[in-house]
């Protein structure tokens, strides 16, 4: 598969997940979690080869427009309606090291807050030129970028008047299956972030702020698109220098 770097592959187990930083399973303010959250204690397991390894995706899976949501579903010569954006950033691990070769998949509502999905009932219209999905793979420095339009906020059935702030969903693969992560990106300055029951599942304000992308004026493309910078941090892994050796080694 793809050669990610010249350095030796790492085989250390991942740092334990800080489960006080992540949202707990049971968050009654987000009603659907009540019947879908495990109630028994998790079985803690220091990573075996099954967890420290993970799939690798080569650039060969990518199409030319995969990282351009403005055009990847649009008819030829047309483009999606909405505020044009470049979203970019880095995938790092908890040690601050870049994660090259990380597959990122993202999905979002259109500029009016409507998803292209058969279970979606919001009255805002579909945009015939907007599908709402894209993907890319980080480069050797862990950097990624894609074009899109700014998603609209939308109402959802939870409380009688709950709205999601504008957001983009991200799915991230690192180098080990234990790093698998899904999260959401929010936009700097949006007052609706602090009213959202899904955002509020995260107990720590600093953890929420880490999911808010900054308006990146420096990388804004004049007469074209504003830039937002969104870095994603995956679990770090232990150095194997002083690991217990397997018997016989």
């Amino acid at each position, binding site marked *: 598969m793809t050669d990610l770097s010249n350095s030796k592959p790492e085989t250390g187990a991942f740092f334990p997940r800080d489960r006080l930083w992540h949202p707990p399973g049971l968050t009654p303010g987000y009603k659907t979690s009540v019947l*879908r959250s495990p109630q028994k204690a998790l079985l803690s397991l220091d990573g*075996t080869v*099954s*967890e420290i390894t993970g799939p690798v995706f080569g650039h060969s899976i990518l199409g030319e427009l995969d990282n351009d949501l403005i055009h990847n579903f649009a008819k030829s010569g047309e483009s999606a309606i909405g505020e044009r954006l470049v979203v970019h950033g880095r995938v790092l691990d908890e040690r601050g090291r870049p994660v090259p070769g990380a597959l990122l998949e993202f*999905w979002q509502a259109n500029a009016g807050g409507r998803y292209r999905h058969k279970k979606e009932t919001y009255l805002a219209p579909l945009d015939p030129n907007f599908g709402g999905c894209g993907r890319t793979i980080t480069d050797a420095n862990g950097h990624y970028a894609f074009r899109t339009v700014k998603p609209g906020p939308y109402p959802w059935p939870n409380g009688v008047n709950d709205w999601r702030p504008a957001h983009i*969903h991200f799915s991230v693969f690192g180098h080990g299956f234990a790093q698998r992560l*899904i999260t959401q990106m929010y936009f700097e300055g949006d007052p609706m972030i602090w009213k959202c029951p899904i955002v509020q599942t995260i107990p720590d304000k600093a953890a929420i702020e880490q999911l808010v992308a900054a308006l990146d004026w420096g990388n804004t493309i004049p007469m074209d698109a504003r830039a937002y910078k969104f870095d994603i941090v995956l679990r770090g892994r232990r150095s194997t220098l002083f690991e217990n050796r397997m018997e016989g080694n």
Partner: protein
Amino acid sequence: MVQSLGFLKESASQTAGPYVHIGLTPNFASIGGVYETDLGATMVNDKTLGRRITISGRVLDGTGTPLRDALIEIWQADASGLYNSPSELRGSADPNFAGWGRCPTHGETGEYRFETIKPGRAPFRDGRLMAPHISFWIVARGINLGLNTRMYFGDEETANAEDPVLARIEHRIRVPTLIAAANGDTYRFDIHLQGEKETVFFDI
């Protein structure tokens, strides 16, 4: 004061939400023409080594209702117990088997289904062999952080009995929640999010 260790915090998880299919299986979500195929939809080809098996089941909530909007990913070793990953240092895995699959649960029945191969045995951290198993990762609306578990094989009683991970389960009555019922080459593995039969989930 002491020196800072300089570590970053892992980005907090957020639910995959009801529209996860748009992002991860767009063709399944009727968004055609963006990707040729949905990633992880096919795990084996004609040249893949090993015994063909089918794994199917459902993900059930606290009332026993199947989730019709969940998404499952699996990760497994090849037929000789090797993972197709740069972090696998014991040898080279079957080039015709990536070992990773992705399947949404059916929109009406809640069923998932993987066509794959039976994995070989891989070692635990201390070198003892683990029983053949497949790692599962489950996300859905209402699940705030992806759930990790493992599926073991009902027709591997001897290997299961000496598996160092299964041995860690204190309440032995819960061990069967990780063991798929065998019926020829088909294995049935239901995942219970809550209740008396709650699946053992892992903090890996």
